[in-house]
């Protein structure tokens, strides 16, 4: 087996994988839910901010603890897809919560976290900005879900077809 991701990288990856997947399901669910709308929004908003904080830590961690290289002989086209999709994942992990925070700011909503704690607005109150950002939040979140599916497909392909140790470099916890 090749080199694994550092332990902190694996921890952040799996923690955020759970959170982001939960966020995508909560987000798409709440916009068509009458009974659970408030409950779901009340989780969605602070959890998005937690993800924004974690992805910032994760980006720093990645700079100091770089991931192991892809196996020798990994075809250039697949390498390009792997690199590109990871850039896209990182960009979306920042963009989706930032656009969410921005759109709430532009709508003039209080940005409530847990227990009465509030974040300041990061944009002025503006109908035009809200009208731009609200659909952008959905579009970017759907793109994130599609990118996640591609990431999952790639991970499973490494695990079941290529059997090249790439899946285990993130998924193995053996000493």
């Amino acid at each position, binding site marked *: 087996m090749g080199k694994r991701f550092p332990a902190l990288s694996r921890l952040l990856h799996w923690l955020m994988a759970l959170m982001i997947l939960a966020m*995508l*399901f909560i987000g*798409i*669910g*709440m*916009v*068509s*839910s*009458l*009974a*659970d*709308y*408030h*409950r779901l*929004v009340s989780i969605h908003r602070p959890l998005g901010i937690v993800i924004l904080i974690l992805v910032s830590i994760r980006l720093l961690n990645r700079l100091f603890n770089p991931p192991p290289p892809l196996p020798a*002989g*990994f*075809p250039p086209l*697949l390498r390009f897809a792997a690199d590109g999709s990871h850039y896209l994942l990182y960009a979306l992990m920042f963009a989706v919560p930032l656009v969410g925070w921005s759109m709430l700011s532009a*709508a*003039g*909503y*209080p940005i*409530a976290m847990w*227990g*009465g704690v*509030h974040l300041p607005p990061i944009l*002025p*109150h*503006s*109908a035009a900005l*809200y*009208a731009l950002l*609200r*659909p952008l939040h959905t579009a970017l979140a759907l793109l994130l*879900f599609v990118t996640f*599916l591609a990431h*999952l*497909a790639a991970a*499973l*392909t490494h695990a*079941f*077809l*290529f*059997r*090249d140790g790439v899946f285990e470099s993130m998924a193995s916890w053996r000493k």
Partner: protein
Amino acid sequence: MSDSDPRKPSPENRYSLSALARPGALASLALIAAILGVVAAAFAWSAGWFSPHRVDQTHIVNAFEADGGVRAGFRRNHAKGVCFTGWFDGNGAAVPFSRASLFERGRVPVFGRFSIAGPIAPDSPAAVHSMAINYTLSDGEVWRTAMVPIPVFVVRDPKSFYDQLVAAVPDPKTGKPDPSRMKAFLAAHPETLRAIGLIKAQPFATGFANERYNSLNTFLLVNAQGAATPVRWTMEPVDSFAPAPKTAPSSDPNYLFDALGKRVSQGPVRWHLIFVLGRPGDPTNDATLPWPRDRTRIDAGTLTVTGLQAEAPGNCRDINFDPMVLPSGIAPSDDPLLPARSAVYSADFTRREGEAKTPSPVQLQAGR
């Protein structure tokens, strides 16, 4: 497994298409496809894409549009309104019941909106006066509320609300709702008939300034110890209540708003925020049911309205008075209308904020 195991791809060709020829490769592909399919299907299920007829916020906003038509850029309900500014003076009386800083002695800034329920239409004695308020607490928290004068609400759950809207959709032939559909709705909803009886027994006021406005839904006040008290509330006007006349006193299509403008120009208009404390057994999840009249009432403070502004960019026009925007110390009850109001207000807000804006029919005369 050794490297000679035929089930394991050799390092040389594991990335080539020929690797798919090894035993078990197609089964692996099928497994991958199945896992992806399950995840995608679960997402589609969460999104409601498998249940397009389940009533959600989009259906309800669409039903408002079918009933009242669409004036682009305006609220689908309570379309006609005017903004106000002022303040709220807490008097400390509600502090034992709620830890919200609003209820301590002191003043916080307030803005809000007076409006009439329904689409844009000429003012009339039957118009349902409404008051929405945004309290900005000293700690940065916000409390929003949207209130009307009726003593109870006409339906008790979101599905009934939707069915009532659909029953009132105008018949394309006559331009009027089909009375048989509303009759059928009422036959299926005795609670609505009872509520309408209570609503008709209590007249509206002559105008906005001497109207009382009710929370309709039950909320919980939560104090510093974490104890919750179910409450409903009323904004009780200081101006003396007088019942609305049977017919419009003026041909001015905005006579209610113009009278409010005149009243505010004469001096501040005040309301007392009166909390009615529920007792165990009082219905919290059914807004069609009144509470007994003898419940304890607490005067938590005074709202003072000092100025009016026509709707404009960035003022109450562009605010969603979502009644679930609550500070710590006020919490939702188990009333199913509450999350639904939040969801529908949000969907309506998103729709109208994306449309081109035109001036409100309610404009204030110069010098006011």
